[in-house]
């Protein structure tokens, strides 16, 4: 097997607050192959965004700090790099697309100026060359009449177009890895679908790996090869997208899947929308065991005492990992019989 593009080992991140340290990420480990699309799902505060921002030194420090782990990108440990070396990777080999295109573009700079920046920094293009490439990039993300729009400001673009500009910036230096952090969350549904389709198309053209962070399982299903479910700064389940959807092994994943509205249309299939009871744990005082146990109807006493390791799920597709002491399919079958 070839070396992975990204190898995250036991990453832990905490934020110091007046009320004590908030343990936002608690030992996250996974790998990403070249060209793979990984969907990371979880609710707010699950550590899904923070852990990728932390890898690249993008969390404010202080109060944030990385309390442990390694992040190997093409064999180099990002956490050990100096700020200057990280700058070369950010926007170059690793591109970013952020949530909320309204606030993620600088209101005081033209779109051209913002796209040109990484081109000049990472590719060393001169002003004219960078501008020509900026125009090509706007074409690439299907913004009509690109040449005329280069000198416009972000407020002259619609929400969807701004997100396209963000994607153009993220892809500008032909990254090996594109990290999209809630890239479609602030957009309305039809625009979301357009953006997802665009990213899939660009991926086929450019072949980069993608980490797609979202709380929307529907988007993940459409775009990812692999899905990873995070909760309270831990990975609870991870595996090939079809297998996760067809055969969830963690109760939290199941809860998320049941929370999806069923639009199949048949009257019989309609049901009240499921909701996961309770609230996420206080990240300052995490329970000793499985963080989801207090909200989990299937939790065993062992769940409350000891964190289960992330390991291959029995009888599931290879690479389908789960952190659970209980056997979900068996419990579900028993429930169905009753």
């Amino acid at each position, binding site marked *: 097997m070839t070396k992975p593009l990204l190898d995250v080992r036991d990453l832990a991140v905490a934020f110091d607050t007046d009320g004590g340290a908030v343990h936002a990420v608690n030992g996250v480990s996974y790998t990403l192959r070249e060209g793979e699309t990984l969907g990371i799902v979880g609710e707010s505060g699950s550590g899904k965004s923070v852990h990728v921002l932390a890898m690249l030194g993008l969390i*404010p420090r202080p109060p944030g700090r990385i309390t442990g782990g390694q992040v190997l990108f093409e064999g180099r440990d990002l956490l050990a790099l100096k700020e200057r070396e990280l700058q070369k990777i950010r926007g170059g080999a690793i591109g970013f697309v952020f949530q909320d295109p309204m606030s993620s573009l600088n*209101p*005081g700079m033209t779109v051209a100026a913002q796209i040109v920046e990484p081109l000049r920094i990472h590719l060393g293009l001169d002003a004219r060359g960078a501008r020509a490439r900026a125009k090509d990039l706007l074409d690439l993300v299907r913004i009509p009449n690109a040449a005329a729009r280069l000198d416009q400001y972000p407020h002259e673009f619609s929400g969807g177009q701004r997100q396209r500009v963000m994607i153009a910036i993220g892809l500008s230096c032909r990254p090996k890895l594109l990290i999209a952090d809630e890239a479609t969350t602030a957009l309305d549904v039809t625009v979301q679908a357009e953006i997802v389709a665009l990213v899939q198309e660009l991926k086929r053209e450019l072949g980069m790996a993608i980490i797609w962070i979202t709380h929307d399982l529907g988007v993940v299903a459409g775009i990812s090869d692999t899905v990873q479910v995070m909760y309270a700064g831990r990975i609870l389940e991870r595996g090939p997208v079809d297998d996760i959807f067809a055969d969830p092994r963690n109760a939290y994943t199941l809860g998320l899947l049941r929370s999806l509205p069923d639009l199949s249309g048949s009257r019989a299939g309609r049901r009240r929308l499921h909701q996961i009871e309770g609230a996420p744990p206080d990240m300052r005082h995490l329970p000793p065991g499985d963080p989801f146990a207090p909200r989990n109807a299937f939790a065993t006493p062992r769940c409350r005492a000891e964190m289960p390791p992330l390991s291959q799920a029995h009888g599931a597709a290879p690479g389908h990992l789960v952190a659970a002491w209980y056997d979900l399919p068996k419990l579900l079958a028993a429930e169905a019989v009753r």
Partner: protein
Amino acid sequence: MLRFLARRLALAVPTLILASMIIFALQQLLPGDVATALTGEERDPQVIAFIREKYHLDEPLPVRYGYWAGGVLRGDLGDSIRLQKPVSELIVEKLPVTLELACLAMLVALAIGVPMGVLSAVKRGQTADTVANGIALWGLSVPNFWLGILLILLFSVELGWLPASGYVSPFESLSENLAAMVMPAFVLGNAIAAVMMRHTRAAMLGVLGSDYVRTARAKGVSPLRVTLRHALPNAAIPIITLGALEFGQLLSGAVLTEQVFSVPGFGKLMVDAVFNRDFATVQGVVICTAATYIALNLAADLLSAAVNPKLRRA
């Protein structure tokens, strides 16, 4: 942009009229008039009556306002009865002094306040931030006249480097002019720098936490460029607005500082005029200051529009 300018200029007219009415009316609240001030101790009723008639002081208030406003429209601000000179001449005489002092003070304020504010925002919570805040607190707390006197003691009396007071026109000798202006400019600028620093820091903190600053960092932009190119222009609007207001204040004359350093500017002219009930001069200076304020605010808005493209359409 032209429409924006035209509309703002049209709005300035009623503001000026209102300002002139208020100052005209307020002066009537002061006891005594120029006639009593001119006649001094003797108070000869005949002389007083004569002066009152000559200068229309016996007419009703609206009529007198009419006389004066009519003059202003023709470019005639009236005469200073005390100095027997046209007010416009007095203003032309004193304005360059105050203008120079204001510009130098503003330069001092910007040169100290903005970099210090930026630095303390970037180094938030670190030693540099604490030191900068300490300096700002000091700058805000020190009274101008006291700092002025201390500076004179040190640089003029002890070291003999700078003249203690007086004013030399820059057209006579630029070096002597600057030597005379540097201390008053520093004293005035110092207090503004402190306010400027606090505002710059607050604005920068807001902007540095914004999503687009994170985007810039995620693009691999260096911290220096993030601060100066991405953050500072977006933090500039409150700084520009504050700068314009402070500059207007400076132009209306720095009474105490001008007194301490014997700078013959607007502040001194105004104080003398008020004490002598020299209403024409007071009115002239106030209307001039009001016009300057309006012009500065307009300039600040134009500058903000230049910095923030979103404002250009408003």
